[in-house]
């Protein structure tokens, strides 16, 4: 029998970005909050300090801060006719497993997703007709608007020290910013980062090709900063060890140095580390959750933590897994297209070229997480870009620059260079400093056959079924990839490099290696009614009103942008809905 503890107001499952935001906001509103985090405590001073944090082998290749697949992983397959096999080690994506979650080792690119996503089906049907959307493409409106989220985007940007250049301030286009962004009330918290040479030369070329380059907004403080909560940031040192590392300068907006320490000072808050939640518990009616069950991984003991309200904040993948394990909501079935939990899993696609410029010095080891210049001319945000001609829905962004170009992983050489020996060595020496990348990140539209369910065979260390991911790229992504490769190669050619490895659109199925991005979305999507979604627009479960599920798992499809802008904004939005509406009158915030 599990040891049963005293009931608390709120249990948070996972303490990364979303858990951290809810912890701070809800404790400040007077609620008694317990956060259960499977990972251990980590601090900047002890764990992310120089020199030992500058260890590519440990943090990039041995996954020091990330989920340990020995305990829990997924099974994967490309389509329903394949037998899923366990992802035996991490590769394509890297969920975090420490206090702060993936928010510790992210790069910080922070975007605002707009109505182009939130109203996707309506907009495309209106402009291109119903038939333009393929039958198996299950895109749908999200039930929320940009106008509703705008203040929360701003709140997240100011919390996380996002550096950037506004492109559209209250409807006025701003030179040097992204002309395709939706109107914002305020500029970014900080001015853009100092551009590196690679992003500079990319920007010039993009401009010469008629595009609109802008500095990528990112939560890398371009100068020392104190956020509205009083959290102190150092200035980014362009150390080149951003993505997959904790930041020794506290210059990367991360939950462990912002919202979490604030919550921890509040007597209403308690953090339990090494607490692995295995299930959300329901009452006999099935209409309310009563708390969670977890295993103390230091002792092996099973514990029940009763709570009046539960929020799943365990990262996009784990949130869906917990919903399936707990039997909340009807699991999705791709054949009948009935059920909702597991529906609309999405990922991202991309293409990239490497350009070699004899004699130049790009110093690829000097950069911030967001040292990229970007163009959105072919992105979802540019509605002028004619999809009828391009033949695909959504879009992609193209960037030039570096992010964490460390030498075990990054050693560009012209295609055809031998993999070892003297010729390999001299080419490696010659081109390391003189190469740069242009790469595209592309959206993935939801598809009937891309989904999650529970695996029938494989189990995790707690004896529970692994979650099974069924995913592959469809024609929309292939068309987008070809378009992106062409645009990249045209830009590259216009730059007259000594030589370049052209971008090639991917044709092979999605694979679990190598790393692609930790931008997994969908599975417990938000929507307008219980028939098409798991959550309402406040990320509240349609089935159990005292359960909220926060993370990119709520996205009804994926965009080309990184997810954490809307993930953070939605966490603040949900916190406000809980504080201002739910606490006063607990019950469904949207009637079904």
């Amino acid at each position, binding site marked *: 029998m599990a040891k049963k503890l005293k009931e608390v107001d709120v249990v948070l499952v996972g303490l990364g970005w979303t858990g951290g935001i809810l912890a701070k906001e809800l404790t400040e509103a007077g609620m008694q909050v317990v956060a259960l985090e499977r990972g251990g405590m980590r601090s900047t001073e002890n764990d992310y300090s*120089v*020199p*030992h944090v*500058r*260890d*590519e*082998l440990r943090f990039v290749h*041995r996954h020091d801060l990330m989920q340990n*697949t*020995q305990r829990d*992983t997924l099974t*994967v*397959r*490309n389509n329903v006719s*394949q*037998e899923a*096999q*366990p*992802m*035996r*080690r*991490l590769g394509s994506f890297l969920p975090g497993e420490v206090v702060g979650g993936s928010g510790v080792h992210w790069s910080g690119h922070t975007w605002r997703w707009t109505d182009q996503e939130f109203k996707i089906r309506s907009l495309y049907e209106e402009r291109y007709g119903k038939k333009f959307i393929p039958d198996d493409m299950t895109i749908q409106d999200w039930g929320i608007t940009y106008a509703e989220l705008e203040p929360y985007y701003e709140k997240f940007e100011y919390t996380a020290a996002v550096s950037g250049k506004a492109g559209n301030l209250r409807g006025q286009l701003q030179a040097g910013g992204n002309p395709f962004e939706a109107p914002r009330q305020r500029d970014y918290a900080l001015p853009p980062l*100092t551009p*590196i*040479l690679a992003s500079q030369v990319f920007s010039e070329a993009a401009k010469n090709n008629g595009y609109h380059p802008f500095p990528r907004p990112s939560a890398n403080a371009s100068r020392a900063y104190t956020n509205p909560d009083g959290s102190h940031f150092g*200035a*980014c*040192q*362009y*150390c*080149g*060890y951003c993505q997959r590392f904790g930041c020794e300068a506290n210059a990367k907006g991360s939950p462990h140095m912002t919202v979490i320490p604030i919550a921890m000072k509040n007597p209403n808050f308690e953090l339990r580390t090494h607490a692995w939640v295995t299930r959300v518990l329901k009452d006999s009616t099935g209409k309310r959750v009563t708390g969670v069950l977890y295993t103390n991984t230091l002792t092996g003991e099973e514990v029940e933590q009763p709570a009046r309200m539960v929020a799943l904040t365990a990262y996009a993948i784990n949130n869906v897994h917990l919903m399936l394990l707990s039997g909340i909501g009807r699991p999705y079935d791709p054949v009948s297209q009935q059920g909702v939990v597991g529906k609309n899993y999405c990922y991202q696609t991309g293409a990239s070229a490497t350009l070699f410029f004899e004699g*130049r*010095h*790009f*110093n690829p*080891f*000097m950069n911030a997480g967001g040292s990229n210049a970007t163009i959105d001319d072919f992105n979802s945000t540019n509605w002028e870009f004619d999809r009828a001609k391009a033949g695909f829905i959504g879009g992609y962004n193209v960037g030039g620059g570096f992010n964490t170009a460390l*030498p*075990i992983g990054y*050693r560009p050489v012209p295609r055809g260079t031998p*993999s*070892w*020996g*003297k010729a*390999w*060595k*001299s080419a*490696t*020496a010659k081109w*390391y*400093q003189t190469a740069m990348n242009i790469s595209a990140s592309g959206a993935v539209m939801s598809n009937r056959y891309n989904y999650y369910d529970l695996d029938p065979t*494989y*189990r995790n260390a707690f004896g529970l079924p692994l979650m099974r991911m069924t995913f592959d790229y469809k024609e929309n992504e292939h068309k987008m990839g070809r378009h992106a490769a062409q645009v990249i190669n045209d830009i590259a050619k216009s730059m007259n490099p000594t030589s370049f490895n052209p971008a090639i659109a991917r044709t*092979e*199925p*999605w*694979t*679990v*290696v190598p790393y692609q991005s930790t931008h997994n979305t969908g599975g417990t999507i938000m929507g307008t009614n219980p028939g098409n979604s798991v959550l309402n627009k406040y990320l509240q479960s349609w089935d159990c009103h005292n359960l909220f599920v926060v993370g990119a798992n709520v996205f009804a499809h994926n965009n080309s942008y990184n997810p954490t802008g809307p993930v953070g904004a939605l966490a603040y939005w949900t916190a406000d809905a809980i504080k201002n509406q739910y606490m006063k009158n607990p019950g469904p915030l949207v009637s079904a």
Partner: protein
Amino acid sequence: MKKDGFDRRAFLKSAVAGGAAAATVSVPQSVQAQPTAATAAATAQGYAFLNPEEGAFVEALVDHMVPADELTPKGTDLGLNIFIDRSLAGGWGKGDRLYMQGPWKTGVPSQGYQLPLTPAELYRNGIAAANVHCVKTYKKTFDKVTAAEREEFLLALQAGKVTFENGPPSRTFFTTVYQTVMEGMFADPMYGGNRNKAGWKLIGFPGVIAVNYQNIEKYRDKPFPVNPVGIADMS
């Protein structure tokens, strides 16, 4: 090169001749790994995982992949064999962070690594199978074949053209081997490879950077002074 007049290989060989080492390879004694001129550095450091046959394989491999020239000393002089040995002896080699529950199926390539082997087991069985293959094809173990034969074998391995009889998939073996050679060359020297930061000096990578705030402008399109710093230098 013999240090202090002591030939490690000769000693080890005499100690295990006809024993376990021979059994794992199942090739005739006469063509087994023979004592070669081990580097002084490797001899001095010793191996925590590799047996003599495996040591000979790895030393030949890293010296072939990273030959001495005007750019760097050869692989064993950079400690790449030591890096590999320590990696295999440590947590990673023993399957840390590897989901090791069955059932075991080959799956499709997009599903990634599916072998019931830890990296250390993959290395051990892969080396044995590679030597069987080399003996069959070239009449000698990998460490004794000519440089041209070694090159031919490695290229075939990389291209997936070699089939190991009763061994792990040759391509998976190669991928792991290649990854560890590159890790040894470019990881922080505290792990045993990249000795004297030669891998970093080769490309001009500065290692442990602390502050670059001013350097973005200062070194824009200019060479950054190459004087790499490792973790040990700052500890």
